């Protein structure tokens, strides 16, 4: 008998308890704080460096520096959060709330409000020890350091003004200055 009635307790319990499912959407879903719903950008802080787009595993982000736009295809994004790790300005975050379904893939474009003058790093060659750390950290390979010749050079066309060289310099001799 025990072999036939082993499920009895579960059946009885379920008969007299509330359903485990929610009456969605009348009763909305509650997401925990860490829920990875979608990427949010604080466009004011963004410097359009493009590091997020270069590192995004699904290539969901496009950064157009000339037009001053940051675009994300929310249907391509896999919510991995790698862009939030990589952004030098920490202006990306991943927040609860999923993208609503649509009949076709759509992207969201954010425009940089005011186009400021671009800032470029400048090294104080008096203090600089030519350790080449800035060159190694530069995501664009825009810095060339020649230890023998004691030369620090910047390729302004390649530089995206991310400021990583400034924050990584052990001697703190790099500063980001506006172009005159």
């Amino acid at each position, binding site marked *: 008998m025990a072999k*036939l009635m*082993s499920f009895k*307790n*579960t059946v009885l319990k379920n008969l007299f308890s509330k359903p*485990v499912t929610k009456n969605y959407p009348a009763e909305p879903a509650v997401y925990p704080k860490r829920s990875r719903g979608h990427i949010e950008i604080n466009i004011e802080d963004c410097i359009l460096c493009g590091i997020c787009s270069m590192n995004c*595993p699904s290539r969901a982000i496009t950064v157009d520096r000339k037009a001053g736009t940051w675009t994300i295809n929310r249907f391509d994004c896999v*919510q*991995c959060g790698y862009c939030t790790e990589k952004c030098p300005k920490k202006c990306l975050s991943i927040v609860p709330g999923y993208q609503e379904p649509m009949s076709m893939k759509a992207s969201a474009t954010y425009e940089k409000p005011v186009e400021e003058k671009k800032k470029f790093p400048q090294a104080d060659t008096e203090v600089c020890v030519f350790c080449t750390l800035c060159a190694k950290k530069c995501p664009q390979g825009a810095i060339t350091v020649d230890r023998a010749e004691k030369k620090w050079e910047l390729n302004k066309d390649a530089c995206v003004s991310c400021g990583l060289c400034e924050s990584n310099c052990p001697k703190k001799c790099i500063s980001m200055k506006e172009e005159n």
Partner: protein
Amino acid sequence: MGKQSIIPFGPQHPVLPEPIHLDLVIEDEKIVEAIPSIGFVHRGLEGLVKKKDFNEMTYVVERTCGICSFMHGMGYCEAVENVMNVEVPDRGKYLRTIWAEMSRIHSHLLWLGLLADAFGFESLFYQCWRMREKVLDLFELTTGGRCIFSVNKIGGVLKDIDAEMLQTMLSVFEEMETELKTIRKTFLFDYTVESRLKGVGVLTKEQAHNLGAAGPFARASGVKIDMRTRGYGAYPDLDFEPITSEIGDSFARCDVRINEIFQAIDLIRQMIGKMPSGEISAVVKGNPNGEYFMRVEQPRGEAIYYVKANGSKFLDRMRVRTPTFANLPGMLETLKGADLADVPLLILTIDPCISCTER
């Protein structure tokens, strides 16, 4: 000898969430031989190492599978960390191991549900999946994702689990353990379940060993093989014994997996009990150079990650050998001589994950 005919099974079949095809050679109702063909969902993940740098690859690797996603990421990261000689801080190791054991619980509950579904016990199926939902909620609370967590990185983990969350986990697992004990009674002592599982698809210890079976499938046949005893993550600090059974039939596989859920809950308790404080990840400098084989115990068995690096951002090679791949020969063996009606059940008993197999 009776007349032989061939019945195609899959790639689309109600019991298969993923595509695998078998040509079943049958004589009357008995299977004489099963000839598999795979490759329906090959995605070429391993080739992507040439296009994505080794850090970015973490997010690709964990998308190999939706069930063991965490362990895929963990195995890959540990392989690269070993190449780079990076020591993950203790807390990072513990967090990884907690998430890994939670993955085991949710994977086994998923399997138990599918098994119940395969032998036609629908309500038991829903009971298992209802319980699994709690683990998924815990995952969402701690990592932000329900199936893909993106918390692994080379050098450690990205998110910490605070004391309050650990407490929530303890109480959820406490509750779950009670419910699981009730369900265990049905799985292991119910007449209907017994008649569908006992003596079905026996794989002897020798066969399991010779055919290179892995994980619970091998342990149910008495092969005491469990990669966790190799001691990666927090396992060296934990007290556990691989769960085995000598019987080797479908019932034994069910028995081993149910008991592994209890074991996983116990391991999580042990870890929460002695959770070290401190950093959760180490600083990683430079690019990897060298090669490494990492072996981890996934819910389905041993998975191997091979990584070969050349000192640049991009790896030379990455290879994943998944447990389902190792278990396919064993599965084909159990099919020989089985009833046609038992085929769906027998395929399920290895807990197949075809996406993993085909990467």
